[in-house]
């Protein structure tokens, strides 16, 4: 099959990238392993999507539908029920599907938009037995919202991530009992909005600094033992509580899905789990771009969409030979209390022309006035005061073109976040 741009994955990142590229008059093929477009949004039947882009409160499938229509209008082709098995460094893509067998696509540019997957019980090495009734929250969400099955009746949810909190509410709607949401950190892992709308409004008990010490039950989960943890996240003996239940849901983090990227030899950032990208969402392989949760895990779909648009436009420019000349590159360094910064590099030219946007996450929450600074050598380029910072909420800042002149003699900028004095 031939196409100028191939997009792997059709979530909001892939759809936005495909649309943006197609609007530049290049041919675009989107490859999706599910039987329909939309990615994870199709199972997110709750509202809360599109507040920034559409100033409207949409459900996931509604939001997806708008982009699916845009993509169609722009002339994007789609290969559904088709899994990308391999991408070679020279951009040859191998796809499998029941109709065509193995398809080889060799586009001029690729956008990787595979989304992410959930951390599992194995990764946490939770002690106890291994019965039926232990699911990740996203798997449960698919079972309930798409397949129409209840995975259990009495739930304990480990982790206060967004999917976990949304599922706490969803399962309550479906007549199940959510006994507890347990969070091993002293603070929330997801958005405060979801805490209010999904946990507090439904009187679901959420306990901080507690984790699951043991799963009990032979064939099916019979109980979960919860335990308090100290500051090093170690269980405190004597604080165990046996919670009878038949299902344990895990909402303990998402991992960007980069098997393909890694096998292609793209340079990765251990802090994000995704490829190192520049301000055009370009990876270390020329002509290969990435967007959305493969790059780093976003909270809001609107931002995923914007990143997708950037990646799609850059892919089209690459096809059309309009790539920016490779000028000076500046690294962004995660400094004090900063866990990650994206993009990890940017071109000085891009900054001088149109400014550069940085997205970041903090390590530790600070529940009071906080100062964010970006410095180059000793020169402060950017400063902003925030009311609070939380690991569950991504921060976005815009660096203006005028600071570019301070970067001529340096090759990195450092982002720090600290209590304001």
């Amino acid at each position, binding site marked *: 099959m031939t196409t100028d741009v191939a997009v792997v994955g059709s979530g909001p990142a892939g759809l936005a990238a495909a649309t943006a590229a197609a609007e530049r008059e290049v041919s675009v093929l989107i490859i999706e392993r599910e039987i329909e477009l939309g990615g994870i949004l199709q199972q997110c039947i709750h509202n809360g999507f599109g507040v920034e882009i559409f100033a409207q409160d949409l459900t996931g499938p509604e939001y997806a539908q708008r982009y699916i229509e845009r993509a169609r209008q722009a002339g994007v082709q789609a290969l559904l029920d088709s899994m990308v098995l391999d991408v070679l460094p020279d951009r040859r893509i191998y796809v499998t599907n029941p109709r065509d067998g*193995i398809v080889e696509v060799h586009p001029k540019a690729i956008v990787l938009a595979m989304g992410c997957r959930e951390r599992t019980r*194995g990764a946490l*090495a*939770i*002690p*106890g037995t291994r019965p039926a009734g232990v699911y990740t929250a996203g798997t449960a969400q698919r079972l309930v919202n798409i397949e*129409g*099955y209840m995975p259990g009746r009495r739930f304990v949810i480990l982790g206060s991530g967004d999917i976990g909190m949304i599922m706490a509410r969803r399962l309550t709607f479906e007549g199940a009992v959510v006994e507890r949401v347990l969070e091993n950190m002293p603070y929330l892992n997801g958005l405060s909005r979801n805490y209010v709308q999904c946990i507090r409004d439904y009187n679901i008990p959420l306990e901080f600094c507690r984790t699951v010490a043991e799963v009990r039950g032979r064939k099916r989960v019979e109980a979960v033992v919860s335990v308090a943890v100290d500051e090093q996240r170690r269980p405190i003996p004597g604080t165990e509580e046996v919670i009878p239940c038949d299902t344990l849901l895990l909402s303990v983090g998402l991992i960007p899905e980069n098997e393909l990227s890694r096998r292609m030899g793209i340079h990765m950032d251990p802090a994000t789990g995704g490829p190192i990208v520049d301000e055009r969402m370009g990876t270390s392989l020329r002509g290969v771009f990435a967007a959305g949760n493969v790059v780093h895990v976003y909270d809001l779909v609107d931002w995923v969409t914007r990143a997708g648009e950037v990646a799609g436009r850059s892919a089209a420019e690459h096809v059309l030979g309009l790539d920016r000349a490779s000028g000076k590159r500046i690294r962004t360094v995660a400094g004090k209390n900063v866990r990650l910064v994206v993009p990890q590099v940017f071109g000085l030219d891009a900054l001088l022309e149109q400014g550069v946007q940085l997205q970041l996450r903090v390590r530790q929450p600070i529940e009071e006035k906080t100062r964010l600074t970006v410095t180059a050598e000793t020169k402060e380029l950017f400063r902003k005061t925030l009311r609070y910072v939380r690991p569950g909420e991504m921060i976005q800042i815009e660096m203006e073109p005028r600071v570019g002149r301070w970067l001529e003699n340096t090759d990195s900028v450092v982002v720090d976040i600290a209590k304001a004095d």
Partner: protein
Amino acid sequence: MSEVYDVAVVGAGVVGCLIARALSRYQLKILLLDKEADVCCGASKANTAIVHAGYDPKPGTQKAILNVGGNAMYDQLCTELGVHFLRCGTYVVAFSDDDVQTLDDLLKRGQRNGVPGLRIISREEMIRAEPHINPEVRAALYTPSGGIVDPFGLTIAAAENAVANGVEVRLETEVTGLLRHEGRVKGVVAGTQSFRSHFVVNAAGVYADEIMRMAGLDGFTIRPRRGEYFVFDREMSPVRSVLFPCPTPVSKGIVVTTTTHGNTMVGPNAQDIESKEDTRVTAEGLDEVLHGAQRLVPSLDPRAVIRVFAGLRAVGSTGDFLIEAAREAPGLINVAGIESPGLSAAPAIAERVVEILREEGLALYPKSDYNPIRVPPPDFSELSHRERAALIATDPRYGRIVCRCETVTEGEIVAAIHGLVPARNYDAIKRRTRCGSGRCQGGFDTPRVLEILARELGCPATKVTLNGPGSELVVRGTKEVDH
């Protein structure tokens, strides 16, 4: 009048399945029973998967003889059955003067046991073979005949080949008593059913002593000894062979090994426990395993763990395998206390049991149409793109990926469900296809497998289980109400 079997084999672990297959060469009516919903649900599914060379057991013991004999049979056996087996070599690693002395003792013992090719290698040679090994290594005992096998693959393939040669398998059939007549064992009782047979082979793993008790034999007892494990993500799997620390009297120690699919696996510890069902993992046990493993390979990163599990060794009271015709209960052949190296020894144990049955008077006439070859079903992940395309052309279901981490297709899952020993639950599919055994551990495939199982078995999704009745994956439809 119900039919009479020549032999009823109790227990469809690797030992029972290989016994059934060995007997299927002859003109016999054979029944293989297990209480679980699939074959390979006991120790045979939860072990270190090492085909030991045989330097470890005391010379002259059944363990020593059958281990060395079993190891030698592995190439042919796995070729016939189409099972993953790798003679990757094993190393016992020494860190101290005492350890170096132990290597010498093991070498001598191994030579007495008849293990071929044993030699002590230098620190440099060890580091060259396994670059991630603890650099404090002093020397190692290298055993070229040691290897690793896919223990699920072997057990299932043996059962399937037995079925292809006429053996009858009954699952979810727990033996609760023995039929006896004038002191002779004449069959088994399983709840309300009974099965008459001329001989009963007791290969019930950790429960073999209880089957013996049903025959009035109570001299031999089995204690469960639990061992816990970690499995690592294939992409963060540093070793290519099998690394042992120097052994202690209770255990061979925490091993760092690769699996036939390239995942590093570490374990087991050794904990004597009370219950024969207690396969839980514990925080202390996992800690012990990790620390033991990091002594061998310091760079092992617990963040790359994708699965933890535990298995129970069937530790017999005599310290050796007990493989014999029961003198006080004629008709019963006991295969008990088959702890490690039971997997390695299993092919030789099976031959030994055939000999015992012959000695006990079972007439063994070879079958003219016996076929030792089992052609394994297609494994999509191992094919070239061209072979894949050809396969999909014959059956489009091989074009749909159900498990993304291990690239398992719908076609493979359907084939497993309709195999000679049908996979009737999620775990059974997993053992046959690796579906769900990768880094997302079923997060992606579970809803899809649920649908496929319900469709192929013709049952509602609420009846689909993880590993048999009581382990249903979902409890009701969303729009249904609980009563």
